[in-house]
């Protein structure tokens, strides 16, 4: 297939046939990976209609769990808490992570390597240790547990992900760009905001997505830093393993996923319509 790619004449005659095949196989590969990613989601949705409360073996079709979902106040509150925590965490992580990556890139000083390493520590630290040590810290300084402590904990292990993603992008950044902006009379702050940040957007978006995901699904650190009023959804769900993860939880996840996918796929349409 690629035999004739070496010769320049051949490639000019049929410029993109080899690339076309490559392109198609890459798309096929991507599709396969997406199937892999969504396989358990499909199963999860199907099992949200399972008659069995223990939801381990299929026992029949029912939609009753969806009905029960709406009246389950603690679960809905937990979902709300999760979204609040994840939302604030993501925003804070993006700010701290992006600023941190930029500053580490821009400035070289003694100890910058130490800072770089310190940033990686929350990523590797086992959650139990982070949870307990943060709890000891909070109780020593007399801070009450609640949303604040949970968010602080979440931001601490989420922002390194943003920072690393942005740093990778900064590594290939053309330094001439910032120079040009400064030459054209922009203040360093303006140069940062109007020139650098747009360039970093894919990395910031990637980091934000990772931070949000990590925060939404975090259990152990949350357990140690939360109060009853700030209990998040994963905390509730993990506690239900003994009783049986009844299909209501599947229904909740299914609704959330389908809603988000619909939003993703149709938001472009909505934007166009609203114009």
């Amino acid at each position: 297939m690629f035999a004739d790619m070496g010769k320049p004449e051949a490639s000019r005659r049929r410029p993109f046939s080899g690339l076309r095949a490559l392109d198609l196989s890459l798309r096929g590969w991507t599709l396969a990976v997406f199937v892999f990613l969504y396989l358990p989601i499909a199963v999860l949705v199907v099992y949200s209609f399972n008659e069995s409360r223990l939801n381990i073996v299929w026992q029949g079709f029912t939609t009753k769990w969806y009905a029960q979902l709406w009246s389950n106040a603690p679960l809905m509150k937990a979902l709300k808490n999760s979204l609040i925590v994840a939302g604030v965490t993501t925003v804070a992580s993006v700010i701290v992570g992006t600023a941190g990556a930029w500053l580490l890139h821009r400035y070289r000083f003694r100890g910058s390597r130490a800072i770089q390493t310190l940033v990686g520590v929350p990523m590797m630290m086992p959650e139990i240790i982070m949870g307990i040590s943060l709890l000891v810290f909070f109780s020593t300084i007399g801070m009450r547990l609640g949303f604040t402590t949970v968010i602080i904990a979440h931001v601490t292990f989420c922002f390194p992900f943003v920072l690393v993603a942005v740093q990778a992008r900064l590594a290939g950044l053309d330094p001439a760009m910032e120079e040009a902006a400064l030459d054209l009379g922009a203040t360093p702050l303006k140069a940062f905001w109007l020139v650098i940040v747009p360039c970093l957007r894919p990395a910031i978006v990637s980091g934000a997505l990772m931070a949000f995901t990590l925060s939404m699904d975090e259990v152990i650190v949350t357990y140690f830093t939360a109060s009853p009023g700030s209990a998040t959804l994963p905390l509730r769900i993990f506690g239900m393993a003994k009783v049986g993860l009844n299909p209501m939880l599947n229904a909740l996840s299914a609704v959330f996923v389908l809603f988000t996918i619909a939003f993703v796929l149709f938001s472009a349409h909505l934007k166009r319509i609203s114009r």
Partner: protein
Amino acid sequence: MKTLRLLVAVSLLGLGSAARAAELNLFAWSEYVPQAVIDGFTEETGIQVNYETYASGEEMLAKMLAGGASYDLIQPPDYIAEVLIRNKLVRAIDAKKLPNLKHIAPEFLGMPHDPEQKFTVPYMIGTVGIVVNTDVVKEPIRGYRDVFQSKFKGRIVVVNDNRELVSWVLVTLGLDQNDITPANLSKVKPVLAEWIKLVKVFDSDSPKTALLSGEVDLGVVWSGEAARLYEEDKKFSYILPSEGAHPFVDVMAIPASAENVAEAHKFLDYILRPEVSKLISDEFPYTNPNLAARALLTEEQLANPASYPKIEKYNTFRDIGKGAAAIDQLVTDLKSAQ
């Protein structure tokens, strides 16, 4: 600085000024206190219940010790209650405020972890026993020795609790399950090494999953899991091992640092009411120590062999202090050696 922090916290919660109603900070097993019970209590007394949960007694202890918020009621298992009492971390309960305490069956009062019956109120009793999928395993299984045979290799599930594992070997060898000494542990080691090789799944949270999905055929699990399996399909039988079974008693206690002591007593008395206790039993098929509540249960509930097995001796777990670490090292060592 403290005011600033408080302001930030409040604004983050998006609350305006909320009236300070009476509250109760309950720290209990997740899904061990039905929402209906909590709602009923709040409706009747107007006391707001802040229900915080944990998935194991050890988790509860860890958070309490690390400096968790001050709780008014906790739900430790018996051996943890014992060590809390000894370290003066729980306060005495005023029995005069609990008229419904009289419903508790006498065999559950004055147990070894709280001989003076001053600090705890029994909540639910459970056991650890053998569950068998009788559709697949036709022969009679009477005890641990019958379970851990090489013919069942790769078809066994056990709880992922190192202390449980060691205790089973101890009683099989005729030793005291609470006697954790280096000598005993060295006797346990070879037997346990063999048993571990036969196990397919270690799972403390939901051993019923492996049994229901057919990945394993028998196991040694909590009675609550076995009871739910039985409710799902009567093919799952439950027996207490002949070598010796141990019940565990989950109790309620009031931490020494509790602020809302009066409210805590009210809640305790509330859940001791027969009709409320029955609600708890409906949700959680453990052994209910409340005799008046038992009288309200259905035939089917009482017939569940995992909920109400015949317990001859109440040989409960005692606190083993630093022995827990030795056990953990032993089992980790053996598991790693596979």
